[in-house]
């Protein structure tokens, strides 16, 4: 989240799209209710009328996988009716930038496309630079090649009629949503978006969110209270795990994972874009300090300048290859993986195209399953359709204790790192993940010491000292994450002794004199104590629910990021009542500002001591035009891998031209095929958690949602002769699933390009291990194994199915 949970209560208009907050983030609704009771409008856009829709002022249905068309129409609506915040746009976004001669968009493709590699040459999307190497700007926003005009041109095609034909949303509903949401383009009003997997799990997942970011920038809704772009994370600590490198392509603190593209540390450290604009903070220019401090944290004394601080010891991604779950299981399916740690996950149920993944696991020599309970993954060899006698995989199960049985932190969606003490002691032989991994690491180190092996240096040099009295010590780990001074240093007249905790990332250095396990978390555990454990109840001076002394949030306890865009050029807030920061003449008050530089004062002659507010961007401006993504600088509507229409009504490319397509027999897909005529989607229910591993064995929760179901419209049920509550068979090109039909008014057929298109939906929280009947299985048996070209998140939210009576 750019903002945080409490801040939702400050909003004037809340769009819940790509998520179902009432059902899947029930506590968030407390803040939605707060906002509504102050007069905010709630909009729910969802293929199905949900418990969120039931509470909304406006509900609009849309066909799964058409969000960019829906939102692109909103961009056009904003531009046509001049509802944007022009001052904000000119001062803080790259709407004024001018594109180089190579940029073009034709027939659904941006310039630079290589059809063979399914890839773009992004250099074709470069900005025009002046003689000093600073982007040329057209502050009139009128030049043909400026971003603003190109944006207008790009979305000129997204007219209400066409958008409605693609999305299936009635035209009147589109207008109603656009009108309500864009009313917040005026100064002093803010709208927010609450999204989740309904947006990310598509072949255009990242671009769904980009489209919304563009809308928020046009309306001046980024950086302000009650605004922002807010991802509702799917677990209490997903934010924390992502910050600490859950994903294959990033290291702690969103540093890029080393790659063969950058064989030496110097290559890595020099790869980022430079800015020649003295007003651009270009914060990532500090990356060398964070990277070297991280390597120091990994390897301690062994990391020296002369050995590139151990950079050579870290694994490099093969350039051009991706290592997401989809890729991992594709490799596994093809027999390229021997062993597998399945840690805190239930991939046999949670990952798209479950049949492929379950088969893939049978090629393993061994699997280690670390979890609270046995699950469908550890027991895959005795699952439906498996012949145990023919499966060689040896499975080891290590029982983990539950979160409340250990001390440590979680970081919530709003980036708040919250320390939790230990409740009861772990039951039986179960152990904390920290203990399991510490012992594992120590044993591997011992083995390497004894038996050497190929390339032992990374293991032998790894600093592995997070234990106290033989047990994992979360305080030691948290301090390591914050970081230490490794030498006595003097900064601005103050001496910091070696071995003391670094006060913030401004103190990190690239010469090996500091360590930090994650620069973003620098400031979280300092000589002042464990900031995440704070429970102060005082609000900040602006009284907008920042509660700066309750827990701690990254970066440097800034509760609303990009907050220097919440003020005008003089440093005065756009919203006088719910202000985030304010310049008093000599300092900022309110939230921790995005850099303490004074206000810009004017665009014509900006204060040379100031900086543009979007400091994480090379040039300091928010990106209306985003040249960094794999699939294009402007979001464009493409159909999902499997869709109900032959031709994309928006352009000549049916699906995202850069989305990955996997080629095994188990990856079959059938678009627009009469055998699978209905759009399918998956979702969660309030009553189960993730794959249901922790909730399905819980009788009170199973009582509420006892069986996997398929929701369908009354019209479709009549067409197929299906009665409410009866068991039916759902099938896709990849698998089938027996489930109970819920025939409901909450799904309605869509009118797509003049034809009726039916959609159905399934929860993915079931698995064959429990309930005991063994008949309730995961909806991921049906979903397709393709995904977003930027993140490789699978496209589980839109695929094609059939349903029939059994």
């Amino acid at each position, binding site marked *: 989240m750019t903002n945080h949970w409490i801040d939702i209560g400050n909003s004037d208009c809340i769009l819940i799209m790509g998520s179902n907050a009432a059902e899947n983030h029930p506590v968030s609704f407390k803040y939605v209710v707060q906002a509504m009771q102050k007069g905010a409008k709630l909009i729910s856009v969802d293929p199905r009328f949900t*418990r969120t829709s039931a509470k909304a002022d406006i509900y609009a249905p849309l066909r799964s996988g058409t969000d960019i068309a829906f939102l692109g129409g909103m961009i056009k609506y904003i531009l046509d009716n001049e509802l944007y915040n022009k001052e904000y746009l000119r001062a803080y976004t790259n709407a004024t930038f001018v594109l180089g001669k190579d940029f073009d968009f034709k027939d659904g493709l941006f310039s630079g496309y290589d059809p063979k590699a399914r890839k773009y040459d992004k250099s074709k999307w470069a900005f025009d630079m002046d003689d000093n190497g600073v982007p040329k700007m057209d502050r009139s926003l009128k030049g043909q090649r400026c971003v603003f005009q190109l944006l207008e041109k790009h979305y000129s095609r997204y007219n209400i009629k066409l958008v409605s034909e693609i999305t299936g949303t009635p035209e009147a509903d589109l207008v109603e949503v656009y009108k309500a949401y864009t009313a917040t383009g005026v100064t002093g009003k803010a709208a927010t978006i609450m999204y989740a997997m309904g947006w990310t799990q598509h072949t255009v997942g990242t671009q769904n969110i980009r489209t919304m970011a563009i809308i928020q920038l046009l309306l001046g809704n980024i950086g302000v209270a009650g605004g922002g772009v807010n991802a509702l994370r799917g677990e209490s600590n997903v934010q924390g795990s992502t910050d600490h490198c859950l994903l294959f392509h990033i290291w702690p603190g969103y540093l890029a994972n080393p790659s063969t593209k950058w064989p030496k540390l110097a290559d890595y450290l020099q790869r980022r874009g430079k800015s020649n604009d003295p007003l651009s903070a270009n914060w990532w220019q500090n990356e060398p300090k964070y990277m070297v401090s991280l390597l120091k944290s990994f390897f301690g004394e062994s990391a020296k300048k002369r050995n590139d601080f151990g950079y050579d010891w870290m694994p490099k991604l093969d350039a051009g290859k991706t290592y997401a779950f989809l890729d991992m299981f594709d490799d596994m399916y093809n027999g390229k993986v021997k062993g597998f740690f399945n840690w805190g996950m239930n991939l046999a149920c949670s990952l798209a195209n479950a049949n492929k993944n379950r088969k893939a696991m049978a090629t393993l020599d061994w699997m280690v399953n670390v979890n609270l309970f046995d699950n469908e993954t550890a027991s895959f060899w005795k699952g439906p359709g498996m012949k145990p006698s023919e499966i060689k995989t040896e499975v080891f199960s290590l029982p983990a204790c539950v979160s409340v049985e250990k001390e440590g932190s979680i970081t919530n969606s709003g980036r708040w790192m919250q320390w939790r003490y230990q409740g009861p002691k772990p039951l039986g032989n179960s152990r904390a993940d920290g203990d399991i991994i510490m012992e594992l690491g120590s044993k591997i180190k011992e083995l390497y010491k004894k038996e050497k092996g190929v390339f032992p240096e990374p293991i032998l040099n790894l600093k592995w000292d997070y234990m106290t009295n033989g047990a994992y010590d979360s305080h030691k780990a948290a301090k390591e994450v914050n970081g230490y001074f490794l030498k006595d240093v003097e900064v601005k007249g103050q001496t910091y002794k070696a071995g003391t905790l670094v006060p913030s990332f401004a103190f990190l250095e690239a010469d090996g004199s500091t360590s930090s396990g994650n620069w973003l978390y620098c400031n979280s555990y300092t000589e002042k104590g464990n900031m995440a454990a704070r429970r102060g109840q005082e609000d900040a001076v602006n009284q907008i629910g920042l509660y700066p002394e309750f827990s701690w949030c990254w970066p440097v306890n800034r509760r609303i990021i990009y907050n220097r865009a919440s003020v005008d050029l003089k440093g005065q807030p756009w919203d006088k009542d719910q202000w985030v920061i304010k310049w008093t003449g000599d300092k900022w008050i309110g939230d921790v500002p995005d850099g303490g530089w004074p206000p810009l004062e004017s665009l014509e002659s900006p204060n040379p001591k100031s900086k543009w507010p979007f400091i994480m961007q090379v040039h300091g401006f928010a990106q209306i035009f985003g040249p960094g993504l794999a699939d294009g600088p402007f979001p464009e509507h493409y159909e999902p891998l499997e869709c109900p229409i032959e031709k994309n009504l928006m352009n000549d490319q049916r699906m995202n031209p850069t989305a990955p397509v996997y080629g095994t027999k188990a990856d079959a897909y059938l678009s627009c095929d009469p055998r699978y005529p209905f759009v399918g989607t998956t979702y969660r229910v309030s009553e189960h958690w993730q794959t249901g591993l922790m909730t399905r064995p819980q009788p009170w929760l199973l009582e*509420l*949602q006892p069986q996997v179901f398929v929701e369908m419209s009354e019209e479709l049920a009549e067409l197929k002769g299906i009665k409410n509550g009866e068991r039916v068979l759902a099938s896709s090109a990849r698998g089938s699933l027996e489930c109970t039909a819920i*025939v409901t008014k909450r799904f309605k057929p869509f009118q797509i390009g003049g034809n009726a298109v039916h959609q159905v939906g399934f929860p993915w929280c079931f698995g064959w291990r429990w309930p005991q009947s063994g008949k309730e299985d995961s909806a991921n048996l049906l979903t397709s194994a393709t995904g977003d070209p930027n993140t490789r998140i699978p496209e589980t939210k839109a695929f094609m199915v059939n349903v029939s009576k059994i």
Partner: protein
Amino acid sequence: MPGKSFFIDTTICTACRGCQVACKQWHGLPAEKTVNRGTFQNPADLSFMTYKLVRFSEVVVDGKLKWLFFPDQCRHCVEPPCQMTAEDATAIFSDSATGAVIYTAKTKNLDAQAIVDSCPYNVPRACKDGTLAKCDMCLDRVENGLLPACVATCPTGAMNFGNRDELLAMAKKRLSVVKKSHPKAKLLDPDDVRAIFLVTEDPQLYHNFAIASREAFDISRAVALKRLVRPLTGLTRRW
């Protein structure tokens, strides 16, 4: 009027059913064996093992789809017809401090059907041996300064509990706000019950027994007649 009351604001109930589970947890009630019957509502009805049940109802009003949620429970009537029907304070009595209507194990000796029939809201349920059970206002919690389990767990503030006068005031205040956007909004039998629901649509659309039924009123009248001929004693005695 002294005692306690619930205010249940269905306009902000999201049917997360935290209340339903919290009730089972606090009372140590077993789960029922259920199947998906083509609805999210489960179990199908209140029972001897289920005192709190969120009812789901899909209706179309003026061409607009509504999904109505009704976290059903005992209303703890100010003058409880069940208690009057039982005429046995060792089986059914009203707690003098809170007004909670409490069923004891002695309900086994009552005519269970008569008690069920007497309830205008169709709440009490009997087990096989005829013992009756229903929401007890979490009296043990309330007497120890805690909120009822369903109220404590509610994430949105749909479930509220406190002194009756304050909760009635809260309900009336909220009604006046809701009425601006939902002219049909109303409080359900606020003067007669201690679990006051706020709804925006015709109560029947939420649940057949959302408001006191016509028949129940007749029975209540019959009971009231009985009261005239026989003096009422000990009905508020603490058990």
